[in-house]
C-alpha cells in the first residue's frame, strides 16, 4: 500500500460521515428555508415581523449582558487565582469549572432551585422573590454556564504573561491599579475578545436552559423550537436557524482568530 492510498484510507471515514451528516443536511436546511411561499424573501420577513425582530433583539441584549458580566467576574476571579496560591485554591478552581459538563437543562434546574417558586431565595427572604422564570433567571442561567468557559480562557492566557512585565512596571513606580490597566488587561485583551465571543455565541444558541426555565421571554432558539414543533413552520424555523448559525459561527471565527482553543458552544 502506498502512502497516498493510506492517506486516502485515513480520510475515508471522515469524508463519508461529514458529507452524509453535516454537509448535505446543512445544504438541505438552507434550501428548506427558501421553500415557503415567500421564497428567499423569508429572510426579509424576519426583519419585517416585529415578533421575530424583538426576539432577535432580546437574544442579543441578554447575550451581550451575560458576556459583559461573565468577562468581569471571570477576569477578576481568574487573575486572582493565577496570582495567588493559597490553601483551598484548587477547591475554588474545581468549583468554578464544575458547570463545564452540565447540560443546559441542568443549569436551568439550578436556577429554579435558586430563584424558582420553591427556590432558596424565596424561602429565605420575606415576600415573593421568584426570578427564575423572568429575564433575570435567563440571565443568571446563561451566566452560570458562561463563567467557567471564560474563566478557563482567561486563566490560560494569564498564566502565559511574563511575570517580569508586572515586576518591570513596579520598578518604574506603577501602582497595583495601573499594573492592571497598563500591563495585565492589554496582555489579556486577545483572550478577553476570544472568551467574550465564545460566551456571546454560547448564550445566543443556548436552548436547554431557556427550555427548562420555560420563561415568558422569547429567545431565538425557543422561537425556532416552537416554530418547528408547534407551528410546523419548517421554512421559518430553518431560516431562523440559518441566521442563528451564521451569527454564532461568525463569533467563534473571531474567537478562533484570537486564541485558537476549542471550546464547546453547548448550554
Amino acid at each position: 500500500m502506498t502512502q497516498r492510498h493510506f492517506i486516502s484510507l485515513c480520510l475515508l471515514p471522515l469524508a463519508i460521515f461529514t458529507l452524509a451528516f453535516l454537509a448535505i443536511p446543512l445544504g438541505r436546511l438552507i434550501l428548506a428555508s427558501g421553500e415557503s411561499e415567500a421564497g428567499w424573501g423569508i429572510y426579509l420577513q424576519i426583519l419585517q415581523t416585529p415578533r421575530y425582530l424583538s426576539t432577535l433583539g432580546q437574544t442579543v441584549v441578554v447575550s451581550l449582558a451575560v458576556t459583559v458580566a461573565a468577562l468581569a467576574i471571570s477576569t477578576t476571579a481568574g487573575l486572582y487565582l493565577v496570582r495567588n496560591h493559597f490553601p483551598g485554591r484548587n477547591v475554588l478552581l474545581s468549583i468554578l469549572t464544575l458547570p463545564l459538563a452540565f447540560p443546559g437543562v441542568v443549569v436551568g434546574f439550578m436556577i429554579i432551585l435558586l430563584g424558582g417558586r420553591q427556590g432558596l431565595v424565596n424561602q429565605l427572604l420575606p415576600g415573593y422573590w421568584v426570578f427564575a422564570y423572568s429575564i433575570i433567571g435567563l440571565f443568571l442561567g446563561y451566566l452560570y454556564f458562561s463563567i467557567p468557559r471564560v474563566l478557563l480562557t482567561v486563566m490560560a492566557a494569564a498564566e502565559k504573561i511574563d511575570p517580569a512585565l508586572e515586576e518591570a512596571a513596579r520598578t518604574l513606580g506603577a501602582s497595583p491599579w495601573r499594573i492592571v490597566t497598563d500591563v495585565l488587561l492589554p496582555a489579556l485583551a486577545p483572550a478577553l475578545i476570544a472568551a467574550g465571543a465564545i460566551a456571546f455565541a454560547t448564550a445566543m444558541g443556548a436552548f436547554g436552559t431557556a427550555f427548562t426555565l420555560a420563561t415568558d421571554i422569547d429567545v431565538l432558539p425557543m422561537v425556532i423550537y416552537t416554530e418547528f414543533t408547534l407551528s410546523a413552520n419548517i421554512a421559518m424555523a430553518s431560516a431562523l436557524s440559518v441566521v442563528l448559525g451564521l451569527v454564532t459561527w461568525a463569533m467563534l471565527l473571531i474567537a478562533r482568530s484570537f486564541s485558537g482553543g476549542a471550546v464547546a458552544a453547548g448550554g
Partner: protein
Amino acid sequence: MMRLITRHVPLAVTLLACAFLLIPIIQSILAGLTVNYFRGLSSGLTLKWIVQVWELYSDSIFLSIWLALTCLAATLVIGVPAAYVLARNPGRITRVLEEFISLPLAIPGLALALALLQLYGTVQGFRTSWTFILVGHVLYTLPFMVRSVLSVLAAIDLRTLEEGAASLGAGPARRFVDVVVPNAMPGILAGALTVVTLSIGEFNLTWMLHTPYLKTLPVGLADSYASMRLEVASAYTLVFFVMIVPLLMAMQWASARAQRIMQ
C-alpha cells in the same frame, strides 16, 4: 486603602462566583436525599427518591452510557486517522477541512438537529433507532477528538519520527500503528474522556432527535424537571452529578497531562 481594594475585592468576587455556582448544586444534592424538601433536613434523610429514579429512569442511564461508548468508538475510528492526515499535511485545504468539521462547535445543536431531521426524518428505520441520536453525538463530539489528537501530533516532530520508521522499513500502515498512535496517546486519552463527558451531557441535539422510547439521561432530566416532584428531579440530578463529575475531573487531568507533554 488601595491595597485593601486590590486584594480583597477580587477575593470577594471569586468567593461569590463560587457560591453562585455551588449553592444550587448543594441544594439539589440535599433535596434528592431528604424526605420532604420543604420541611427541610428535619424530615429526615432517605434514599427512596434515588430508588424511584432508578425505577423510572434506569433505561435512560443505560442508553446514555451505551451512546457514550459507541460515540467514543465512532470518534476514534473517524477522528484519529483524520487528525493524522491533518497533522501530516498542514496547509490551506486541511485548514478548511478542520474548520468545516468544527462547524458543530459553532452552530447551535438545535440548528444541526433541524438539518438532520429534514434530511433523514422520513427514513423510518433510521429516524426511530438509537443510531440517529448517535449521529448527532458523533457530529458534536468529533471536533474535540480531532483537535485533541491534532494538537499533540502537531507538537511532536511527526515527520522525522515517520521518516525514521520508514528508513527502518515500516510501511504507512505499520508506521501509523507503531509510531503515530502511541505518540498521540495522551491526546487520544484526553479526547476520549472529553467525548464521553460531552456525550453523556448532550441535550440540545438529543432533545430534537430522540423519540419517546429513546430517552437519554439529559432528556430524562428535562422530563423530570417538567413533570416530577422536586425531590425526584433532584435525586435524578444527583445521579447525573455522580456520573459526570468524576468524568469531568478525569478529562481535566488528561487534558492537563497532554498539555504538559506537548511542552
